[in-house]
């Protein structure tokens, strides 16, 4: 039993990483209705930018704020330059665009900062949290930041005019234009916010997985899985999904014999697919009724 409780705790700790990423995934899905495959790479790039700033002597929180601002602007710029022209292209063409963006960012980051693993600092320290060996103060801090982000997003979408306009633009673009909302800019704003949240996720994740251009590969897959599991329409679901995926992953590794690191991912994914077969809109997603 103690083993079980410990593994769940450890799962929550890793789950915080996925939750953070899933939040960014849901954010962009709300704004543009696609899963952005390049999301993880954008976060990775942002994290490198913050690392570079710290190398130049900027203190942690200064670098943090600058990076979030940079990512927000970069997200908007990417949308305006690369994806606005594709707005009328088929969905699958947009997906190909995400893959292209992925390749570009990964390759450029590798050229600038090379592929060696780098240490990344944490503002929360890495001593055991409340005496537990399984969860560190950094991981606790990461969970705190994720929850804080979730609350801020909730307030933004529920109580601000821009948040309301963004929701309207995402759910019914034509009606949104008819009340005077510039839906095109709402999409850009969605990209900016997703990139900013992604950068926070990256900076929180980097101390755990170390900084290198491929650091987000596994994280993004679990982040997608978490977002889909929680329901792509619900930021809250994404966070819960993230923790669940973390717990799944740890328990599978502990209790199913013969499962090495290699098989953890497929089994976790298989479990998620099983959940989806039962609840196709995810655990907290809104069921969508299709009409002819």
């Amino acid at each position, binding site marked *: 039993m103690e083993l079980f409780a410990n593994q769940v705790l450890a799962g929550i700790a890793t789950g915080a990483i996925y939750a953070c990423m899933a939040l960014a995934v849901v954010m962009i899905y709300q704004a543009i209705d696609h899963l952005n495959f390049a999301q993880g790479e954008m976060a990775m790039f942002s994290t490198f930018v913050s690392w570079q700033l710290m190398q130049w002597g900027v203190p942690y929180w200064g670098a943090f704020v600058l990076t979030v601002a940079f990512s927000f602007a970069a997200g908007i710029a990417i949308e305006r330059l690369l994806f606005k022209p594709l707005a009328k292209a088929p969905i699958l063409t947009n997906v190909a665009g995400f893959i292209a963006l992925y390749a570009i960012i990964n390759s450029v980051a590798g050229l600038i900062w090379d592929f060696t693993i780098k240490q990344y600092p944490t503002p929360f320290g890495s001593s055991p949290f409340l005496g537990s060996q399984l969860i560190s103060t950094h991981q606790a801090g990461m969970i705190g930041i994720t929850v804080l982000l979730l609350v801020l997003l909730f307030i933004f979408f529920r109580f601000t*005019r821009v948040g*309301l306009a963004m929701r309207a633009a995402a759910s019914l673009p034509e009606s949104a234009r008819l*009340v*005077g909302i510039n839906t095109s800019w709402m999409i850009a704003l969605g990209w900016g916010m997703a990139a900013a949240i992604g950068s926070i996720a990256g900076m929180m994740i980097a101390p755990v997985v170390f900084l290198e251009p491929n650091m987000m590969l596994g994280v993004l897959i679990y982040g997608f899985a978490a977002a889909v599991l929680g329901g792509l329409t619900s930021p809250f679901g994404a966070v819960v999904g993230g923790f669940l995926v973390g717990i799944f992953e740890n328990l599978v590794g502990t209790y199913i014999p013969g499962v090495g690191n290699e098989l953890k991912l497929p089994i976790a994914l298989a479990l998620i697919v099983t959940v989806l077969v039962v609840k196709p809109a995810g655990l907290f997603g809104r069921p969508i009724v299709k009409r002819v």
Partner: protein
Amino acid sequence: MTAMLNVKDLRAYYGQVQALHGLNFSLDEGSLTTLLGANGAGKTTTLRAICNMVRSTGAIEFEGKPIGARSTENVVRLGIAHVPQGRGTFTTMTVEENLQLGAITRTDKKNIVADIERMYDHFPVLKQRYTQQAGTLSGGEQQMLAVARALMLRPRLMLLDEPSFGLAPLIVRDLFRILGKINREEKVTILVVEQNAQLALELADQAYVIETGRIVMSGDAKDIANNEDVRKSYLGY
């Protein structure tokens, strides 16, 4: 009276297909005008062309300003509210959020609250349901909501696309009564596209009849209602 909206030689296209073949019409300020026509005559396209939601050529002037090159949202920002066919309700949001969205471009925050109250006076049923998700409303209630949402813009001109569609006759009467009131009391110029010609002609001051993308008749609503051709084709007696 001066013309508020002036449309000259309006042609609209869906891909290669031309839907409007050079429409000319104008709306007087403060008037309630109806645009009549059969299915596929181009009524909806006319409204959509005014808001630049279809590819079109020709000159559209609103209060003396050309608006043909403006994007949909910028046309709306001039004070032209459009109640689309199918109502365009934000089904996942509450009734109140739908109303707030109607006023999303306005900067006078204080008046918005008062305006929402005013809408509840016009449409008491919305007040009962203001925290409900708009998708749970009945068709008639959603139509009321769509009109209320459009009014939240404090529009100078309101375009309505078949507001009676799919509604029970009693509800249609009610809705049209409110439209008349809004037109008289709040001085909102209204252009309503309808298939329910009888009701529309009772309500309107002016009327246009459109057939296969061309205006074939125009004039005082009463005269149009008494016209023999119109009676045979649209009123059925």
